[in-house]
């Protein structure tokens, strides 16, 4: 008997390099991806900075987070969302992101959370 897949939603709200939180959330997502569940990844607030193009983290001896995000499709993490308001507030646009993401308004985010069995934010 197969168990019904659950829905796990991960909310990335941290800047990419100021702390290790962005990387820590991404590691959680990749770990969850191998469990064959429904995975949502949502970038909100300052988390959208993780999606900025042309990051050169080698300048501060850090690993490239946007490159790691580019590997999400290999893990079959395809439900990648971004808060449209957060992009706008930061002068970012969908077509200048390092990663393809589905824009969300507040109602869409509310629905994502309400449909989730568990939600993790970092």
């Amino acid at each position, binding site marked *: 008997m197969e168990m019904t897949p659950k829905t796990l939603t991960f909310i990335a709200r941290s800047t990419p390099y100021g702390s290790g939180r962005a990387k820590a959330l991404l590691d959680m997502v990749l*770990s969850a991806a*191998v469990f064959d569940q429904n995975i949502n990844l949502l970038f909100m607030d300052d988390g959208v900075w993780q999606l900025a193009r042309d990051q050169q983290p080698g300048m501060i001896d850090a690993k490239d987070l946007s490159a790691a995000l580019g590997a999400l499709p290999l893990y079959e993490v395809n439900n990648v969302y971004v808060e449209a308001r957060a992009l706008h507030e930061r002068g970012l646009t969908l077509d200048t992101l390092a990663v393809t993401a589905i824009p969300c308004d507040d109602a869409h985010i509310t629905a994502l959370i309400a449909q989730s069995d*568990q939600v993790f934010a*970092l």
Partner: protein
Amino acid sequence: MKLTILVHSAPYSSQAAYSAYRFTESALAAGHEIQRVFFYYDGVHASNGLSTPPQDEFDLVKAWQALIEKHELDAISCVSSALKRGIMDAREAHRYEKAAANLAEGFVLSGLGQLVDASLSCDRVVSFGA
């Protein structure tokens, strides 16, 4: 209910590390089952057995150890978070040729899969410090 506790913050640096402990204690007192306590990111500092706070301050590592022992809790410290932060058991110390191990008794090092696994099989996950 079956609860999973996720701890992201370090003792003495963030109150969240303490809140997680108090919540777990209260959940047990209310008759709930703790599926697993998972220490992640800075949360792993709660599993450093060398932690030695002043005698007149609350000792969170010891408090967790007592709770773990009393209730036979499954307490896992994320191995990759812990290694980065200089917390390891004898096995990892041997593997990385370190002269000492410092993982506090009662805690087990394991991977993030243990968090996902617990999250899928419990009723509620509660995160502290995030």
